[in-house]
């Protein structure tokens, strides 16, 4: 259900794990490394996690999502280490009986992940690097 790994994420396996006879909808969010940020060319990203705490915070987010929506299955996989353009840092999948809840829950999870889960991203440019969100 929760995985933090330095290996490429297996989106199909995550989706397969959502199968449920009561399920009518699976919503999947796949984050990908964009080649540009604020008009500047990105070379690669580096992700770092405080793993036990990240797992704990992700567990809280998933439990809260289950309280808010009728979720059958949910998975969050986050990659750490060096990622090139178009690689996938995060995959979130939510299986629900009906689709509206799936969209809402999946968006809630990624929005909250970005606010509370101790994972950090460094953008590497031609001429320097920046820890995202660190400075005003």
């Amino acid at each position, binding site marked *: 259900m929760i995985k933090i790994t330095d290996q490429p994420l297996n989106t199909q396996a995550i989706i397969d794990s959502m199968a449920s006879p009561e399920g009518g909808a699976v919503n999947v969010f796949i*984050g990908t490394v964009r080649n540009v940020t604020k008009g500047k060319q990105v070379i690669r990203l580096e*992700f*770092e*996690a*405080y793993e*036990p*705490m*990240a797992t*704990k915070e992700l567990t809280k987010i998933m439990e809260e999502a289950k309280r808010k929506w009728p979720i059958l299955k949910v998975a969050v996989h*986050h990659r750490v280490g060096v990622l090139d353009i178009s690689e996938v*840092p*995060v995959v979130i999948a939510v299986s629900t009986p009906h689709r509206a809840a799936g969209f809402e829950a999946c968006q809630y999870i*990624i929005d909250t*992940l*970005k*606010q*509370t*889960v*101790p*994972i*950090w*991203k*460094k953008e590497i440019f031609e001429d320097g690097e920046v*820890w*995202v*969100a*660190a*400075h*005003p």
Partner: protein
Amino acid sequence: MIVKLFGVTREIVGGPLLEVNDIATVGELKDYVMSTYPGIKKLNSLMVAVNSEYAKDDLTLNENDEIALIPPVSGG
């Protein structure tokens, strides 16, 4: 006490661990690192995690707590 460092705080301090002494609370720890490392003061925010939970400033630190500085997160 040993404090774990990640991301920008690890780079500012120059290593993944920081040893501190005579620090009683989360608030004191924040004050100490911000005054010792001006780069940390310039961050958008600084949180402290104690035993893998976000901690309030008045929480008392114990010798065997797992303590970490949490600079602004940016996962996803």
